[in-house]
């Protein structure tokens, strides 16, 4: 990210900075796991609006904590445990959906 730090250090205008941070985060998130999770959660939900609001607020809160707490974020919440819990949660959701149901077996 050398080009980025150079660009930022040279103090371009506010709009460029806004656009740059938008583009960086947008491209980083495109097709990333949180967007995949948003696709799956909304495809499976009766309330896609709630999924949209929940996803947005969660992502914005996580980055706000990044800005405010800085490098200390990992001290506030141990990243490995939080991610591990999330991994288990998503795995359980996935297995529950993929597990053959009694009704499926009756049809086959």
């Amino acid at each position, binding site marked *: 990210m050398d080009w980025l730090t150079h660009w930022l250090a040279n103090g371009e205008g506010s709009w460029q900075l806004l656009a740059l*941070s938008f583009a960086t985060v947008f491209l980083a998130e495109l097709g990333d796991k949180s*967007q995949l999770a948003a696709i799956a959660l909304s*495809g499976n939900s009766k309330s896609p609006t*709630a999924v949209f609001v929940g996803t947005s607020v969660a992502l914005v809160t996580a980055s706000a904590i990044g*800005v405010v707490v800085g490098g200390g974020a990992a001290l506030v*919440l141990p990243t490995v445990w939080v*991610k591990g819990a999330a991994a*288990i949660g998503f795995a359980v959701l*996935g297995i529950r*959906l993929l597990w053959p149901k009694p009704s499926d077996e009756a049809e086959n």
Partner: protein
Amino acid sequence: MPQPILDPPKPIGESTQVSTNLVSGQAAQISSNSTDNNQGAEDSSTFLSVFGTTFLAIFAAEFGDKTQLAVLLMSAESQRPWLVFSGAAIALVATSLVGVLLGRLLAKRVSEKLLEKLVGGIFLVVAISLLWDILHAA
């Protein structure tokens, strides 16, 4: 609604049966009425529970992730942290919107059974990707 009064006289056991049916029928009627009345309340509780689960799942998955680190790095470098944060926040809302719209599109195009398998598969991919992150961070 059945009218047990017009029915021919029955042994005691059977008439008890009828009255039980009548009572349970009324109960069903009442409960369906109350569902209609509480439609708004149920919608908002669904919204809140879906919102809460989604928030927890996404927050936990994203905490300490590369996006959070990138925003942190950029805001520290720029000396204008809230401007960087604003750009990042708009981007995050935009990618969420794209994700949710794709999910809706998928739900409309694909049969319910296939959708379940696809969604289940995506959840597993997310879980594996999180485990991958953990192993690479350690």
